[in-house]
């Protein structure tokens, strides 16, 4: 078993599926010879050729639309959008076609597509390279939205995403790409979609988070454990559909809920989680639900990005106030 980074784990998963399923085709800008700007696809074009690992023209809408056409013909395209900030031209294809084709053809045409995209900030990137736009995608019926938080989860969820018969938006947290290595068994085993992954058990407060924020939340939880505050941390992992059942079960035990996300608060996914717990778990709550999120500002250029992204201190303070409320 090798220790790999998250981006290497994604590469392993892509390699596994390319090697085992002839219908899998990778496409995107600079993913071939260059191996992708984050090197997620490095070495794959050499191994599988220029037709199965394709450099595309520079047009995100076209990449998404081309994936629709390929998938309608039975291929399993895995398309890369170079950064999530560039997803907007592809939204027409994703929302109007990818998400709807199965429904509008009553199941005649189905689209097993994975759209991969780097997600979030914290890597000192240019403008438009640090966005957390999951809400844009989660709002559309017919899409799955997935966001891994460790190399092993990236590997297993990527395999599950490619094997899923419906379109999956796969958000890859940029600051986790090379943050830490983990032992990942390259055994082709997928992880389940549509379920939370418990990261830490605790009895005082449920903390729901995903992607890169899981690491900051775990650091905050570690600090709070010294103060005898026990955090039950859930990695949402699949952002749509949300595993509300696991969240409600945890809240029933802890009586408190904190949601942490990097994306802006307004209409963010935290609102959906909070609303569902308010609807179904209100009488389990001993304190108001709290959201700790990015601000409702433009994602700042990198000198302020760590002021925008919820810090360990801000997370710890928020959890502490919720527990002591």
């Amino acid at each position: 078993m090798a220790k790999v980074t998250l981006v290497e784990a994604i590469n392993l998963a892509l390699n596994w599926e390319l090697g085992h399923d002839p219908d899998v085709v990778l496409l995107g800008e600079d993913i071939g010879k260059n191996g992708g700007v984050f090197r997620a696809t490095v070495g794959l074009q050499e191994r599988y050729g220029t037709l199965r690992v394709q450099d595309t023209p520079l047009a995100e809408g076209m990449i998404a639309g081309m994936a629709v056409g390929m998938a309608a013909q039975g291929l399993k395209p895995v398309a890369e959008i170079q950064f999530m900030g560039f997803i907007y031209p592809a939204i027409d294809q994703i929302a109007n076609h990818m998400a709807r084709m199965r429904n509008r053809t009553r199941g005649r045409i189905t689209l097993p597509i994975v759209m991969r995209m780097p997600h979030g900030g914290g890597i000192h990137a240019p403008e438009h390279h640090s966005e957390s736009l999951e809400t844009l995608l989660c709002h559309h019926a017919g899409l799955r939205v997935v966001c891994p938080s460790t190399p092993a989860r990236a590997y297993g969820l990527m395999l599950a995403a490619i094997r899923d018969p419906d379109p999956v938006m796969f958000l890859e947290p940029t600051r986790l790409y090379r943050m830490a290595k983990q032992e990942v068994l390259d055994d082709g085993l997928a992880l389940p979609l549509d379920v939370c992954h418990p990261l830490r058990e605790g009895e005082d407060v449920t903390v729901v988070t995903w992607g890169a924020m899981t690491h900051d939340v775990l650091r905050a939880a570690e600090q709070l454990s010294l103060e005898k505050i026990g955090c039950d941390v859930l990695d949402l992992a699949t952002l749509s559909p949300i595993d509300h059942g696991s969240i409600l079960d945890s809240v029933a035990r802890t009586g408190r809920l904190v949601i942490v996300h990097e994306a802006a608060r307004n209409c963010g996914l935290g609102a959906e989680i909070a609303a569902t717990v308010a609807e179904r778990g209100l009488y389990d709550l001993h304190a108001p639900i709290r959201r700790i999120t990015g601000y409702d500002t433009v994602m700042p250029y990198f000198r302020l990005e760590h002021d925008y992204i919820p810090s360990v201190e801000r997370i710890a303070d928020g959890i502490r106030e919720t527990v002591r409320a």
Partner: protein
Amino acid sequence: MKTVAEFNIRYQQLLDDAGQPTGPLPDFARDPAQLHEMYRVMTLCRLFDTKAINLQRTGKLGTYAPCTGHEATHVGVGAAMQDADVLCPVYREYGTQLWRGVTLAEIFIYWGGDERGTNFAGPREDFPWCVPIASQCPHAAGAAMAFKLRGEPRCAVAYIGDGGTSQGAFYEAMNLAGAHALPVVFVIVNNGWAISIPVGEQTAAQTLAQKAIAAGIPGVQVDGNDVIGVREVMQAALARARAGEGPTVVEALTYRLSDHTTADDATRYRPAGELEAAWQREPLLRLRRYMESLDCWDEGRERALREDCTAQIDAAVLAYQANPKASTDSMFDHLFATLPAHLVEQRETARRYAVGHG
């Protein structure tokens, strides 16, 4: 400065406005059976269109996008395609779709507000109607990429209107198709009007076919009211694509002899006299005159054909009207292969509050 590249756009017309050959014709244009079949589908399409507009006017159909005037383009394209090819239509290419086996009832069901109309029993791999303008073009390129990957001798055909050629997706798809020499043909139905905007206000380009040049692929114009010319140009473009020589853009020059949709009123913006002049060049009459000149058509055949088409359309209207409203479950059941838990709950709620309970 020196000239580093030069381009030209060719125009094809094989039957003139009076239905007379402009020169030697291809074999299929001398075969009465083939002429009759093309004329049959063109006539069916015209009469269907008239019926659909009437149904909408009497509240029995939703907003409908008519196709009167486009029959030669639609049938010429359909006749040139092979069954295994894939069509990516816009939303009014009924002539091509009827040729390929989409049924009249399916078209009625769709415009009657029901997705089941897109579940074509005939051409299972053809795309459904595409409402967001030009977004079907990348699908055709993607399907063509799949054919290329699998080494299949199949082609994709994408339709687009004159207004659609202003969209980025049109260029992006042509550009991809050119870069990979994909087996796809883009058919521009230039009917002069994008709702209220005439082509001359849409673009400064002298032709729309020349937009292909920027993508490095050939563009050709054809008289879109000349079914012989359209079929011939399309057959050449498809043969080229099938041979691995890459995509072509075909600009069919025709005229929208109707409003944009039944919700539109073209008298608000079209200059007086233009429509009447366009009717003088309409495609059905042209083919009929040609067939009459070959002595393979007459008033009796015309009457029998119209009666047969009308009976088919009336039967399709009955089938459409007999089609009960879909259950509320159908809103949910085709969202995913397996329905997520929260949607199972919402499906239950929708059942309870179903309008008229099915």
